[in-house]
């Protein structure tokens, strides 16, 4: 690890001021950043501890929830209003990492956790355009089981590793940002950038901007929601494919639907095409398969991850069948 100095932000404004300084990086739980520093992927000159940012979860006037950036993942998953109104979010968080890591990890850190691609995490011996722009991508011809099948680019096929964010994108969460020029709010669905030619630029955050909170809108359909994660072992492994869904059915047809996928794309993937195709119809295996074919029409799977096409649509069928009580 290269030497660095350690500072503590005393307020959101202080954090934003420090974040704008050369070489400064914010530290939440440190479960990702400390690891990346030890691996030589990240080299901040100053770490700014932002765990004193808000850890409150409060009901908004509209009836949604405002979640402070420093809220620990465990606290969010265990919150009574999250468990009853947005169970998909609790379940997604609980599907991620381990209890120890969830106790440490913050909400903002989870959103900004970086790639688990083996080549990104191996500066000594691997090429990676995200870590070292222009160096090449060893994943395309290498081990790409965990990589994206859609939304990637010739430069980068890294998949976004977060479980929590798959649920958040299904719930239309908003990200509250604060920078030197003021505060703004961005939908999480528009927060991440696809890699294109610049995989090192991962979000729409401006330099020096920080996350202060996440906001969930009131969303009655989310009371019937779930998250399912398929992985190489039963627990404590990143997703091969995961599905977040909120659904309601009346007289046998889907009247409301939110569907998002993890493990298949460089960002948590909201499946708007599939939602459109399924709304107003019954939950049948054929209908879900057809909707997923539409959703993944532009998929570009590789040798190690082509199985995700089938896995994604089958997992979608299973989740929707469970949620709506039909046997698809």
């Amino acid at each position: 690890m290269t030497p660095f100095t350690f500072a503590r932000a005393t307020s959101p404004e202080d954090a934003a001021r420090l974040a704008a300084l050369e070489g400064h990086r914010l530290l939440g739980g440190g479960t990702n950043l400390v690891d990346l520093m030890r691996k030589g992927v990240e080299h901040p000159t100053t770490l700014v501890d932002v765990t004193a940012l808000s850890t409150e979860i409060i009901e908004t006037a509209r009836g949604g929830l405002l979640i402070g950036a420093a809220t620990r993942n465990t606290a969010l998953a265990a919150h009574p209003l999250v468990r009853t109104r947005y169970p998909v979010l609790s379940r997604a968080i609980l599907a991620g990492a381990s209890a120890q890591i969830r106790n440490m990890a913050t909400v903002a850190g989870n959103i900004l956790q970086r790639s688990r691609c083996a080549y990104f995490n191996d500066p000594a011996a691997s090429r990676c355009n995200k870590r070292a722009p222009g160096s090449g991508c060893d994943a395309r011809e290498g081990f790409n089981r965990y990589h994206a099948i859609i939304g990637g680019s010739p430069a980068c096929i890294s998949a976004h590793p977060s479980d929590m964010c798959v649920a958040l994108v299904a719930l239309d969460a908003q990200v509250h940002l604060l920078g030197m020029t003021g505060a703004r709010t961005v939908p999480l669905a528009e927060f991440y950038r696809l890699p294109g030619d610049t995989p090192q630029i991962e979000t729409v955050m401006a330099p020096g901007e920080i996350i202060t909170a996440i906001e969930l809108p009131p969303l009655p359909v989310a009371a019937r929601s779930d998250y399912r994660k398929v992985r190489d072992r039963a627990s404590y492994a990143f997703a091969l494919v995961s599905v977040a869904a909120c659904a309601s059915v009346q007289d046998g047809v889907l009247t409301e639907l939110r569907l998002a996928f993890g493990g298949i794309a460089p960002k948590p993937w909201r499946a708007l095409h599939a939602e459109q195709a399924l709304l107003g119809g019954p939950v049948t295996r054929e209908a879900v398969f057809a909707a997923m074919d539409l959703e993944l029409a532009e998929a570009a799977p590789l040798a190690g991850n082509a199985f995700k096409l089938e896995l994604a649509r089958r997992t979608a069928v299973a989740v929707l069948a469970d949620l709506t009580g039909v046997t698809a």
Partner: protein
Amino acid sequence: MAISVNGTDIPVPDDPRVSLLDLLRERAHLTGTKVGCNQGACGACTVLLDGERVLSCLTLAVQADGRSVTTIEGLGDGAALHPMQQAFIDHDGFQCGYCTPGQICAAVAMLRELQGGVPSYVTADLAGQGTVTAEEIRERMSGNLCRCGAHNGIVEAILQVAKEQAA
């Protein structure tokens, strides 16, 4: 600028690169806490920070400034073993013993989480309480790997302690 480790104040190191794990082992000479992967993947370094289980390998010592840490050395009461330690012995919850300090610290905090109403991925009804079952324990302990495969004994040990606490 100090961290209370098992009730004794340890100064926070000047170099912020020092992890809590290295502080415990190299400076406080408390070698019960083990180094496994040093990257968050095995749980061998699990300790309690203000009573909650965390990974000491991914915690910088400075992050623990002003807080209290309990390691395996501090769990028991002087000569007496903590009930979880005794239960691991009773149920053969280890073989080589390398993962054991982390397992035991994790297990102690895990039961508190379960009893405090924190749900897990396998809790069927998120609106309700998780119950102390082997399935819940396996999921909640999945952050602690055991290369010797002592998991069955570990689950039995934890079930025993949960039963004793309930009695």
